[in-house]
Structure formats: structure tokens, C-alpha cells
């Protein structure tokens, strides 16, 4: 499967590295020789220097036999033109473009019907805002994903000493959990991903990923000593695109919201567009400003500036000054392991959101969504099981599933089944598969080749 990626920025580089590790043929195009060098030095992909909107460069990259083109440069216009040229040169190639300008929001569907025929428009910022909102509403969640239109939640929570689950054997869990039906899919212990078996014990300090139905979520979280505390007041630091979108969402949800932005012009723009939100001109790491705005009464502080070091400091400061919770925007994956140590629990990453959004469109077969978990060691895939597949109409224990992968959920009509060895997948059920990175190509094969030919 050949994939062309236009733009070797953060998102482009990251998707390229993700796909290259899955043994896909990836070609990356970028104008900037430095960016290209970073790609060719670090990744096993082909790198082409040039403008991704140029037909000559696209041909050189082999657009004719590419299955997918991803236009993810920083400029919306370049992405549009790249897809337009790709449409002329190779109409059958699936086109994905990243368009970040909010003005395009209402027109996403039009692009697929009209000229450039862009199959999917991606705006990771929308996804980031959604993720932030989910984190706000799920207490203690470090990582949140949704399946089956939000009816199944996939949540990562830190296990603390006081929790009843600390030290428990996995096989003893049903007795402890009781009415909450949750499936523990993975444990991250010292940056190492473990898929726990019956005899494994949960340890305090683990990051635990579990899957549960939406209405059982709060029960499950109470096992981790995390209780629901509704968010009424929020402070946003950084009024960029994401900050603006988030503030608009808060207004919609009637959450009292303040936003701090450094740039005076940007403040004016925000004040113009936002009605209920209080726009503050200043520095998010300025103690006096924070005290002046009653930081100690804030339910959550969300730091969203472009500079992740500032975000980290502002979050730490806010928590120290009495804010209940903080959500920090971080781009560098290499910082994730540090976050726990310095006391930052909830982190969002536009990059990870972009990767997740794009992944689900790249997966073969009838994949509805795909989410990669922190550090990208594993992925959750939601797909439709078709009748021709080898995985239907047999108890799960009889299936020969690749090592490192498991069925984490089955959605049969309106019922949600957290599977056991005896569960059977019916044709047209939706399945949620948890898979380590190594097993993904095999899972794709099962979903694409056996299930359906496109």
C-alpha cells in the first residue's frame, strides 16, 4: 500500500513514522530540505524535495500508483491545490486534506462532491477540542477515546495507592468490580505496554486502559477513587485556534470561561467573536494575573499556547495556586513519560489527535475509527465484521487471532458486549479490536482481505 504525504511538518512526520513502522510504502514531499533531511535520516520512507502542489513533483513521487494522498502542510491553500493536482493526475487515489481554517468547517462535505474530490477533510483541532471536553467531563482520565458514537468509552487512568484495585490480580477483578463491567485492555508500566493476563497484578503507578459502556463509566471510575465533579468554571491559557474553538464550545455548554492571551490584536479578535467569555490580555504564567482572576476557584485550567514549556509551567503554577485540575497541551511525544513525574496528569496533543483522525481513514477494510494510545505502542480499531470473514459465527476462543491483539468489544445491534471466550461475533456486528503495533498489519489483513474486497 503506497501512501504519499505532502508536508513533513509535525503531523506529516509523525504519520509517516507511524506508517513506516507498519511496513507501508510511504513517500514524503516537502519544500524544506531541512524537514526532508529529518525524514530521510530517521524514517524508512522515500523523501522528495519540492512543492507538494506541483504536478511534476507529484508524478515523481508516483501519484499514479498511490492509494492515498495526505495533504498536511501548514497552509490550507497548498493542501487544496495538492489534492486538486492529485485529482487531475490520478482520480482514483484517495485524497485526505488537512484544512484548519474554521471558515471551511461548514463546507467539508462539499469538497467530496465537487472539483478536488477530497474524500476526507481533517481538522485535528476539532478533535482536540472534543478530547479536551471529554477529559473535563471524565474525572481523572488521562486518555479518552470513544467508539460506537460515544456509547463505548476507552479510558486511561492512573492507578493510585488508595484504590481498591492496587495489587489486585486480574483474575480476581470480577469480584471486586461487581456491577461495573469493564475490560482492562492494557497497562502501561514504566513506559512499557503490557497486555495483562489472569495472573498479572495491577500495581499502583500503572496507567490502566479499560473499555466500558458509557453508563457504567462513573461506576468504574469510582473503583479508581475518581469521582464525578462537574466543571463549572474554566480558564484557558492561549487564545489560538484551539483556544478559540474550546471557548466557543464552553459558551455553548454554559460553562463560565476565561481566556488569557498574550497578543493584544488576537485579544481584540477573540473579544469580537466570543460573547460570554472574558478575554484577558496578559501572560498565563503571571502569578498576579492568575491571583487577580481567582485561579483558586477554577475547576480546570487548560493551557493551550504554542510553547509547550510555557504550558507545562502555567499548568503547574495554576495547580499550585489552587486550581482543581489542569489539562496541558504538549506536542513532543518525548515529554509524555516525564509528565507523571512532574505532576501533570492530563495532557492533550494535537499531533496525536491528527494521527488518530488520519489513521482511521488509512486502515483497510470497513474501519470506522482508530485510536492510538499514548506512546503509540498500540491501537484500538473499530470495524464492521462482514459475513465473509473468518472471525464471525465462532466463539472467540476458537479464533486464531494474531499475537498481541484481542477483541475488546462487540456491538451487536444496540447491545454492547464486553467479550469473554464464549462470545460470538455475528455478521455485521461492529468489533473493537485492541492491537499492539506489531500485530496491526495482520489485523488489517483480517479486516480487509477476509472481510471484504474493495
Amino acid at each position, binding site marked *: 500500500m*503506497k501512501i504519499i504525504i505532502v508536508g513533513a511538518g509535525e503531523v506529516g512526520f509523525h504519520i509517516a513514522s507511524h506508517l513506516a513502522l507498519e*511496513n507501508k*510504502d*510511504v513517500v514524503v514531499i516537502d519544500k524544506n*530540505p531541512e524537514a526532508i533531511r529529518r525524514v*530521510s*535520516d530517521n524514517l*524508512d520512507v*522515500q523523501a522528495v524535495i519540492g512543492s507538494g502542489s506541483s504536478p511534476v513533483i507529484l508524478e515523481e513521487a508516483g501519484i499514479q500508483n498511490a492509494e492515498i494522498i495526505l495533504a498536511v502542510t501548514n497552509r490550507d491553500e497548498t493542501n487544496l491545490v495538492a489534492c486538486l493536482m492529485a485529482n487531475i493526475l490520478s482520480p482514483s487515489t484517495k485524497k485526505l486534506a488537512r484544512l484548519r481554517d474554521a471558515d471551511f468547517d461548514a463546507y467539508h462535505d462539499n469538497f467530496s462532491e465537487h472539483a478536488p474530490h477530497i474524500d476526507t477533510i481533517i481538522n485535528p483541532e476539532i478533535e482536540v477540542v472534543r478530547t479536551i471536553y471529554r477529559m473535563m467531563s471524565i474525572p481523572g482520565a488521562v486518555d479518552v477515546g470513544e467508539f460506537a458514537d460515544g456509547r463505548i468509552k476507552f479510558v486511561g487512568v492512573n492507578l493510585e495507592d488508595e484504590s481498591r484495585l492496587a495489587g489486585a490480580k486480574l483474575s480476581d477483578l470480577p469480584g471486586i468490580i461487581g456491577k461495573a463491567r469493564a475490560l482492562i485492555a492494557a497497562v502501561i508500566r514504566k513506559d512499557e505496554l503490557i497486555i495483562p493476563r489472569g495472573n498479572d497484578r495491577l500495581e499502583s503507578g500503572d496507567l490502566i486502559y479499560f473499555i466500558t459502556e458509557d453508563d457504567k463509566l462513573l461506576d468504574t471510575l469510582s473503583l479508581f477513587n475518581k469521582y464525578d465533579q462537574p466543571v463549572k468554571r474554566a480558564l484557558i491559557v492561549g487564545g489560538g485556534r484551539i483556544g478559540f474553538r474550546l471557548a466557543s464550545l464552553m459558551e455553548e455548554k454554559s460553562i463560565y470561561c476565561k481566556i488569557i492571551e498574550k497578543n493584544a490584536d488576537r485579544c481584540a479578535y477573540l473579544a469580537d467573536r466570543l460573547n460570554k467569555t472574558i478575554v484577558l490580555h496578559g501572560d498565563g504564567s503571571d502569578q498576579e494575573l492568575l491571583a487577580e482572576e481567582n485561579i483558586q476557584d477554577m475547576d480546570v485550567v487548560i493551557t493551550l499556547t504554542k510553547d509547550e514549556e510555557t504550558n507545562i509551567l502555567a499548568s503547574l503554577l495554576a495547580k499550585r495556586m489552587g486550581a482543581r485540575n489542569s489539562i496541558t497541551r504538549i506536542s513532543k511525544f518525548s515529554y509524555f513519560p516525564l509528565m507523571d513525574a512532574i505532576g501533570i496528569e492530563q495532557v492533550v496533543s494535537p499531533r496525536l489527535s491528527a494521527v488518530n483522525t488520519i489513521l482511521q481513514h488509512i486502515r483497510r477494510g470497513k474501519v470506522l475509527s482508530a485510536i492510538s494510545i499514548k506512546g503509540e505502542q498500540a491501537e484500538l480499531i473499530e470495524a464492521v465484521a462482514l459475513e465473509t470473514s473468518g472471525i464471525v459465527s465462532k466463539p472467540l476462543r476458537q479464533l486464531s487471532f494474531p499475537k498481541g491483539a484481542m477483541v475488546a468489544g462487540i456491538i451487536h445491534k444496540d447491545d454492547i458486549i464486553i467479550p469473554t471466550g464464549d462470545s460470538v461475533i455475528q455478521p455485521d456486528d461492529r468489533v473493537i479490536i485492541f492491537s499492539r503495533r506489531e500485530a496491526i498489519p495482520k489485523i488489517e489483513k483480517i479486516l480487509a482481505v477476509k472481510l471484504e474486497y474493495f
Partner: protein
Amino acid sequence: MRWRYILNIIGILIFFFGLTMILPLLVGLYYQDSSIIPFLKSIGMTVVGGLILYLIFKSGKAEVISQREGMAIVAVGWTAVGLFGALPFYFGSGFNSFVDAAFESVSGFTTTGASILTNVETISKGLLFWRSFIQWLGGMGIIVLSVAILPFLGVGGMQLYKAEVPSPVPDKLKPRIRDTAMILWKVYALISVLETILLMFGGMSLYDALCHTFTTMPTGGFSTKTASIAHYNSVYFDCVFISFMLLAGINFSLHYQLLRGKPLIFWQDSECRFFLGTVLLLTVVVSLDVYGSVYETIGAALRYGAFQVVSIISTTGYATADYEKWPAMSQFILLLCMFIGASAGSTGGGMKCLRIMLCFKYCYRELFSLIHPHAVTQIKIGGKAVPDDVMRSIVGFLALYMGLFALSAVILAGMGVDFRTSFAAVAASIGNIGPGFGLVGPAGNYAQIPFLGKWLLIWCMLLGRLEIFTIIILVVPEFWRK
């Protein structure tokens, strides 16, 4: 530097390398010659040695290989394979000491073709087959082969590939390095099959045809005959060898493009044009020089002149004539050919045409900017500007190449080897050619080089094959600093 991990990978390489010795063993069994026991011993030692390394250092799997580690794996891996490859020679008859066996083996792997054998025909057929076969393995590169067929190198393969094939301007044929390596080996194998057929068509036995193909395609130069290609004294064979030496001296990605339906690619590629043009020009000059003075007819002058020029510039090192008896100008041109070498991305050695060409352009640009001090100029190749850092690494390469050549020649002369021989022996080793001048000329061999001199030349051959940087970096103290 994670040495455990590096040694672990090298263990795997040695293990699989040991398995390739089964092929010459089969040849030995077929001819029922004296090479069977040596091969059994060598296979045992190599396979067990590899396994022991693998098991001792079997630690947590690291996924990503850094550039530094890639260089270390390739440099140590080549040295190890060269030494293990010497075992059959050492156990077999005809080689007096381990240094001789190691010299022959490394000379094979690096596709040099320098030999310490005075009489090739006395060696058993199994050993001679091995001697040719290791050239074929080394030609396209053992690491490239491993990357292509051994799946566990998948992720780190790229760093290894870059360390083994340090082409000045890297060209990836396919997005994934594994596919690229696979294509190169397939093209290599395909051309090899073609040559074998053509040689058999001319009347060579399958054994001789294979052995010679195995040394033409990697531009190696070992022959199963003491007199090399002169043994056959046939115009047909000369023509076949000239053609295939030229093919082997051309960038293999061009062969791939030719097979993909671009018939004019040899002409369109500026480096290939430069290579073929240089060959043509030098052939004409040498032929005119030897016409009358050595050979009576223009036909003979052309035949021997062309063969020798192509053989040396492609860094193969076959001989059909004793060029020691040629006029001084021709000898000088052949010496220059040793330095020029073949194309980048080919199996040939030397400094590589691409670097020479860019060096010329660089010099011209300097002159140009003296005349037009304000002119903005760029060095271009195939219509594309060459980035400054590539230019810098090329200049660095040429300086290192000449510096190491000079240093090694001085050391060799210091061991009591005469001027002419030490000069040519080092040039022929570092350029991976084989025969030089003086004692090591086309009619001589390397047997009389002193003990330490042989080790020095072994090092030079490895330097040349891995294009200096990968080997020389190991002696830079900064490389070892934690």
C-alpha cells in the same frame, strides 16, 4: 552505543553467513575434492560462533539503530565476515598462514581480487568456487543482502544500508529500504544469469562460467586460471567480459530503470555518460599508444587496450596482457583509472566517477567566480543543484582518500617494499582493483608482501569497499566517547 545489541546483530549475520558456505561444500562434494573437510570445519565454527555471539548478547530488542551504531555494525560485521570467510582457506591446502587466508578472503569480500596464490590451478575446485562466490556476495553487499532477506533487520535496516552503500547522493528506488535492497539484488542476479549463459555459449564449462560471473559482476577479478582471462585467448570472451565489466561499473539503479522501459537512461544520466565517455577516451589513447610499440595490428591494440582500461577503471582487475611491458603513458593512464573507479551505486570501487565529476565542476566554479566575482552559481548534476553539505562530504572524502593512500604507501614502503610496488599495491587495494604494478603486477601476486604489510592492505581494502568513512570513523576517538 549499545554494544550488546551490536554484537547480537553481528552474531545473527555470522550465523547466516556460515550457512552460505553450504554452497561451496556442495561443489566440493560434487567434485569429491580436498575441500570437503575444511568446509565442514568452517561451517561448524562459523555457525556455532554466530550462535554463541547471538545467545550471549541476547538482551532486550532495540528497535531503532542510530547512525553511529549502524556504522559500527557494518564495519565490525564486514571485518568479522572477512575473517570467518578465511577459515576454509586456512583449513584447506595452498595457504601457509592465517594472514594469507585472511588476505585472500577480505580481498574477495571487498571485490578487490588481489591474490597471494602463485599457482591458482593447484587449489581445489571447492575452494576456488568459494573464492569466487565471496566476491559475488561482497559485490552487492552482504548487509544489503541481509536487509533484503532477513526480516528482523526491517526497522534498523536503513541505517545499515546507508553505512554500507554510502553513495554521495542516495537514491532509493522504493519507499522502503527492504524493497530497494531486494530490487538491487534481483537486478544483480539477473545480469549474472545472463553473463553465465553467454560464457557457456562461448564454450566455458558451467563451473568456470559461474566462477567468472561471480567475479565479473561484483567487479572482483579473481579467476580460476593463473593467467586470468588471457588463459582463454578468445575475442568472444574478451568482448563478453568487457561488456559485463562495463555493466557492473554502472549504477545499478540505472539498470533497474532500463528494465522498467527507459532505453536511453544510460545516456540521460550524467554520471553514466561521464563514465562511458572516460572509458572511450582512455581506450582510444591507450590503444594508439600501444599500437606499433607493443601490438602490430590496430585490432589487437584496441582489443587489449580496451580490455585493460575497462578492467582497471571498473576496478575488476582481470588481465589479458602484461601491461607492465606497455609504454609509460599507458601505464600512467591505468594508474589514473585505479583512482577514478566506477560509478556510484555500482559494484565497482575507486573514488567513483560522480565524485570526480563533481570535483571538476567545483574547480570550474572556483575559476568562474574569479572571473565573475558577483556571479551566483550552483553546482548542478542532472539539472539539479547539489546541496552544499553533499559537496563538503565529497571534498572530505577525496581528501581522506588521498591522505590515507599516501600514509599507507609510505608505511608499506617503510616495511622494505620497493617504491613502484608499494605505490601501486596500496592504490590497487584501496581502490579494490587487485593487480597493480611491480611485484604485484598482472603477472605477479601479493605473496611477497611482508606480514604486517598484508594486514595493512587488508585494512585498505575494507576502507575502499565501505568508502572510507564507515571504517575510518572507528579510529576517531570522538566515536568512542560516551
